[in-house]
């Protein structure tokens, strides 16, 4: 187990524990409690994936499930930020992407290989939703300072994380040998994603009375 992986797991443990603690105290707004559930699932998933790698020499099925859950999380998170026809667009796109991911995992990619196509689809969905929400923020600004807006952090982090993931696709797909810098880039993008989620969960917390 590398030091990088330990730091990554430690970060997930801290974020999920703090998030679950706030959720139990009913302090976290409902769209952001979905993020807490997702981070907890990723934490458990990473541990199971490590154990599977040690035991069976492969762990790709876990990442397939995590990618489906990430689509679901984006769907629940963003659908609560929109109303009317925009909400319907979010729900339909999410459902379509989820179905595509399940079909690709089952019939094309296979559960024994890393879900690279799912990640590409997820990246397109994440970037699209972030831009769509930025547009809504511009159309309906609020008096809250931008840096105190949880959704600003989520959108920014999504643009960065999914941008990195999308441009790593040629390397992840195995067409090219993965350079070391891309491994580090993906690692830091993951750290940034969960830190950004943590910031958003923290900001969405209702202040203590």
């Amino acid at each position, binding site marked *: 187990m590398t030091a990088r992986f330990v730091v990554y797991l430690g970060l997930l443990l801290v974020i999920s524990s703090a998030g679950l603690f706030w959720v139990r105290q009913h302090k976290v707004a409902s769209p952001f409690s979905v993020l807490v559930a997702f981070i907890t699932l990723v934490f458990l998933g990473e541990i199971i994936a490590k154990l599977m790698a040690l035991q069976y020499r492969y762990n790709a099925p876990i990442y397939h499930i995590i990618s489906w859950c990430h689509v679901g999380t984006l769907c629940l998170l963003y659908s609560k930020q929109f109303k009317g026809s925009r909400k319907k667009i979010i729900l339909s796109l999410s459902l379509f992407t989820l179905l595509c991911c399940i079909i690709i995992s089952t019939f094309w990619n296979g559960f024994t290989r890393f879900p690279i196509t799912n990640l590409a689809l997820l990246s397109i969905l994440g970037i699209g939703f972030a831009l769509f929400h930025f547009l809504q923020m511009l159309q309906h600004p609020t008096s809250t300072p931008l840096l105190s807006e949880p959704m600003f952090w989520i959108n920014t982090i999504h643009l960065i994380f999914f941008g990195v993931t999308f441009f790593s696709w040629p*390397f992840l797909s195995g067409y090219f040998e993965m350079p070391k810098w891309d491994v580090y880039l993906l690692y830091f993008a993951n750290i940034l994603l969960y830190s950004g989620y943590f910031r958003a969960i923290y900001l969405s917390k209702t202040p203590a009375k």
Partner: protein
Amino acid sequence: MTGTNTTFFLIVGTLTFSLLIVFIVYFVLLYRKMQMSMLLEQEKMRQALLKAEIEVREQTLMQVSQELHDNLGQLTSLISINLKMLDLSNCERDKARISEIQGLVSQLTHDIKNLSYSLNGERVNQFGWSPLIEREVERMNRSGLVSINYSLTPSLISKVSTDKALTLFRIIQELFNNTLRHSKATICTLHLDEKKQQLHLQYTDNGQGFDPRQVSSSSNGHYSIKKRCHDISATITIDSQPGNGILVDIYMPLTKL
């Protein structure tokens, strides 16, 4: 994988991320601009609402004033005339009592007229705000209950808009009322001068004072004064201690509403 491919991906990735950073910075700037314009719009709406609220309030007071003048004032005058017309030659016993009633009715008529006058905000437009305050000070001094020492910097007179002047006049009336009702003061001072583009109103009395912690912020007189100050974007500080009277400082901007 060849070195050319790595360089290609590195260049495309760097360019994309540079664009991404530019996009986020542009979004932040654009959002702040939209936010500012929204806040400005909200402020304009708030000012319009406040103006409408003040207008409605003044209209109500004017109606009350007219009612006092046209109805109650006339009725008391009629009672007074009727009392004077009474033949008291055969009624020596009630003469003194009726004379006392005549005095009271005359006082009542006078008070109603005064009240009607002070409630009518239109007078600010007719005569200007400083004569109205002077008249209010005279009314208080005439009551014999309290002596008011009043001063006004003359250059201020033209610098206060009619809307603000009316609210300022109501604040002064409320201060006088509070003094009469609660403070048991005998001497008050009211000074209006200009400080750093602001009107500075200082009001003191030598009354029994109060403990500010024990006076609820929603207590009627104080609430009314604070609300009116808020309406004209003025800041207010009220300082008082039991046995030490009261010191009120109000600062109202003169240049903008």
